[in-house]
């Protein structure tokens, strides 16, 4: 969606008016699992003999779905860490593919170095005329992203010049929905999205001609149903819906658009992605820092759950995906890359929508693979020697590190190499080139070494759990 839409949505969320009432009936139960926020006991990590200045700016533990929140002492004492299983999975979407000098590099940096695991992917439609994403899905999926395909469909009220308005006649709206659903399938085919991918129909806040939120009309519901049917009829893709949690009142009672649409769709309600910005971290979210970040500077580990019983949280009962921060302007916000250099989020987009999902693959373009499985990991370390696993003092041996998949482009993958013995000298790191599955480094048995052994362990930078693969070399004096 464009920034104007986002602004409009935010406005409506706060000031929507009442037009009609709906009753939440037959709401489909979310199929994705809801992760419970689980925290382990805090443990001392580092003894500090003085209060530290500064803070760690990247804290990683176990995997992408675990946060480690730190408590710094104000005097000499222990740096305390508490592991928290994030209550959801996180992603991001923004209007246009980055127009920076190295956009692909930027997006791999974003995937590699943040908890984000899925990425909004816009089809070129009348509602989203830009084609910056077109043709880039394969490369993005190779980087590891689970893509969330977005089809910006016709809207209840379209303020622009182009013909993108849902007819106010339900029969015509149905025809429009069928055609657009068919178009969405064709666009997905063009991108070669895998079977089972979810295509999200983007329905912005339902307003009247004056721009006031009036809730979804019958024609709008007809359009949505027809679009969903059209996509599902492909037998290849699964239809899903993106809508807003904008507010309005009916007979003095507050309603929410997403909730009403869910009720109107009834049994045909698809997996739904709801946009709503609570403007601050709800009470009870662990590690809340400066909204919408946590204390580590990562995207807040907020759950797709009702943080209160008010109607504004009703969407959480059925939404599988929640756009919890809209058009975030991350001025000055950076994240660390695999070189240690910071990258500005604004290098990627001026405005970010932040998303939380109950499942790791809301777009289902990477089925069966949580983010950790979409990162390359080291599966083997081998040494090429003339004699089995031995190297003579003063001589070298080639050590090959093998990944479980080809390293993504364009950055490749960084592997860390460590030797158990100072007498085996090897680079502390190596980079597996893009599209390659292994990298070979030279290890040297130090001149004058006595007989002994050295174990070489290798892992990717982000491979934090489990025993890293290793090889043991015998050093011959």
């Amino acid at each position, binding site marked *: 969606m464009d920034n104007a839409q986002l602004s409009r949505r935010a406005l409506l969320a706060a000031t929507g008016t009442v037009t009609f009432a709906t009753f939440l009936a037959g709401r489909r139960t979310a199929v994705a699992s809801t992760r419970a926020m689980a925290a*382990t006991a805090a*443990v*001392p*990590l*580092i*003894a*500090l*003999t*003085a*209060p*530290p*200045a*500064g*803070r*760690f*700016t*990247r*804290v*990683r*533990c*176990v*995997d992408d779905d675990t946060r*480690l929140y*730190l408590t*710094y002492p104000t005097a000499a004492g*222990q*740096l305390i*860490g508490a*592991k928290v299983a994030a209550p959801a999975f996180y992603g991001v979407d923004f209007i246009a593919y980055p127009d920076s000098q190295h956009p692909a590099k930027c997006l791999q940096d974003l995937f590699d170095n943040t908890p984000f695991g899925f990425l909004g992917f816009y089809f070129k439609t009348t509602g989203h005329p830009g084609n910056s994403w077109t043709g880039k899905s394969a490369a993005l999926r190779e980087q590891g992203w689970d893509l969330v395909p977005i089809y910006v469909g016709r809207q209840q009220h379209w303020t622009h010049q182009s013909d993108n308005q849902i007819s106010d006649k339900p029969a015509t709206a149905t025809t429009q929905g069928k055609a657009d659903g068919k178009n969405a399938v064709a666009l997905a085919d063009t991108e070669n999205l895998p079977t089972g991918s979810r295509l999200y129909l983007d329905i912005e806040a339902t307003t009247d001609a004056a721009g006031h939120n009036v809730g979804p009309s019958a024609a709008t519901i007809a359009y949505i149903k027809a679009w969903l049917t059209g996509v599902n009829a492909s037998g290849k893709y699964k239809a899903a819906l993106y809508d807003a949690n904008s507010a309005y009142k009916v007979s003095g009672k507050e309603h929410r658009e997403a909730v009403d649409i869910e009720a109107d769709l009834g049994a045909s309600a698809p997996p739904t992605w709801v946009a709503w910005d609570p403007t601050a971290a709800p009470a009870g979210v662990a590690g809340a820092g400066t909204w919408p970040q946590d204390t580590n500077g990562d995207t807040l580990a907020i759950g797709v759950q009702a943080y209160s019983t008010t109607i504004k949280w009703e969407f959480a009962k059925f939404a599988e995906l929640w756009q919890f921060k809209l058009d975030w302007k991350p001025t000055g916000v950076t994240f*660390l890359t*695999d*070189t*240690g*250099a*910071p990258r500005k989020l604004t290098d990627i987009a001026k405005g970010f929508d932040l998303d939380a999902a109950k499942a790791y693959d809301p777009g289902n373009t990477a089925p069966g693979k949580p983010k950790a499985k979409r990162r390359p990991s080291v599966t083997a370390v081998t040494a090429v020697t003339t004699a089995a696993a031995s190297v003579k003092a*003063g001589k070298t041996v080639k050590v090959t590190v093998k990944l479980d998949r080809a390293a993504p482009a364009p950055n490749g993958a*960084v592997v*860390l190499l*460590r*030797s158990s013995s*100072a*007498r085996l*000298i090897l*680079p*502390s*790191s190596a*980079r597996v080139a893009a599209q390659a599955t292994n990298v070979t480094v030279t290890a*040297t048995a*130090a*001149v*004058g*070494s006595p007989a002994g052994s050295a174990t070489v362990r290798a892992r990717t*930078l982000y491979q*934090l*759990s*489990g025993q890293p693969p290793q090889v043991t070399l015998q050093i011959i004096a």
Partner: protein
Amino acid sequence: MQSWTWTNSSRTRRWTDAKNWSPEGTPQDGDEVTIPAVDAWGNTGGNGPAGAPALSLSKLTLQGLTLYDGPFTVTKTLAWSGGLMDADVTVSGDASVSGLDGSVSNPGIVNNHTLKVSGTATITGTASLSPFPRLLIATGGKLVNTGSLTLSDAGFASNAGFGVVTNGGTLSVIGSSATAGGALTITHKAGAQLDIAVGGEFIVGAGTVLKLAGGKVTGELGTLQAGDGNGGEIDVPVDTTVPQLVIGGNGTVSVTAAAGTPPPTLTVSEYLGWGDGSSAAKYSALVGHLILLPGATGNIGNHASLTSGKVENAGHVTVAANTTLTLQGTQPTIVNSGTLTLSGTCTAGFGTVTSTGLIEKTGTGVALFNVALTSKGNVAVSGGTLQIGGGDWTIPGGTVSLAGGARLEGAQAGRLVLTGGPQGGVLAGAGTVAANVVNGGWVEPAAPGLTITSYSQQPTGNIALPSAAAPLLTLGGANLHLDGSLWVLA
């Protein structure tokens, strides 16, 4: 051909007096001549025959009385067991020099005369003599070898003047050979060969300069040594390889060239001994660029210095306990791609060291490595204490590791600076780092724990903890600063 023996029967000492020879007559070209140690009148030493004409002898035997005038050419055999050579002699056949026993009749070349050997010559001493038996080459005297000259337990000496040995052929050393004296220059010319046999040593002693001017030095198990405790210098003006080199007490190896010519290198292929244990006041000096090849070993002991030069170590060099290695002059540098072992208590400073190999501290005691170090290899402290001096240690790759409770200290202003970010250098292990550590790379503690007393982490820095269990890392310092990344491995 006639054989003649000097008798001085007429007591005139005239070479051309027929009665002074036995049988009577005068030696002619092609004849054999013997100059004994004592003539018929009991004269010795400098009372040899005078007024000899230019002669080409088939054999010349010198047994004690001085040989004057000439010049002489010896086409077959020079047998020199005593006396001075106050004449120019050229030997195209075989020559043997012996009797180097330090007695008054010790053979020697004097008064600016030259002995040229174009055939085969052997100078034989007695190994048991101390100091080494030496052929005297007095002021202005020259020994020029264009053939094959063998020093067998013998060497050269000069007096207060300037003697010269020029080797343009093959100079072979068997047993111990040493030079000493006032000022002796040995020039080993291009195309020549200095071969030091198994177990042999050629010691360039006080007052002597051996100039390796392009000649080969061979003999994998023989040693060329500069310095006998009182001095001695080896000059290397052009690229030269020496199998075994010792820079001994007060000895100097100067690997330098004249201005305008490319800087030379001295390559040691087997062994480098650098330092003399005879006295703490004796330095062993290296000037210029020395390369220790892979497979070679080196031992630095006592007091050694590197001046305005570079040592490239691809072998294994040990700085022995109680050693002071001084790096001085303009940009003295050690480039280590092999192993540099700091053993026990020792000091090395103040130049620059770059390493892609292993630098290790072993044994007990404190080693001060007072250099600006850049290491992409490994630095291992496995015993005692290793001190950082005034210069930073920059670790852009590789690992600095502590084991066995070892200690890394900052003795002066120098810091341990890990750079390179996630792809950079690593400080790992267990022990204490009592130094300023600036982490822009990795810190990876291990059981039972790592303590860093003064710590600052940069944005590119990383700490990797093996688990979120008992803390293995203690950080401190008045300016303790945290930034960058914390990784906790499950």
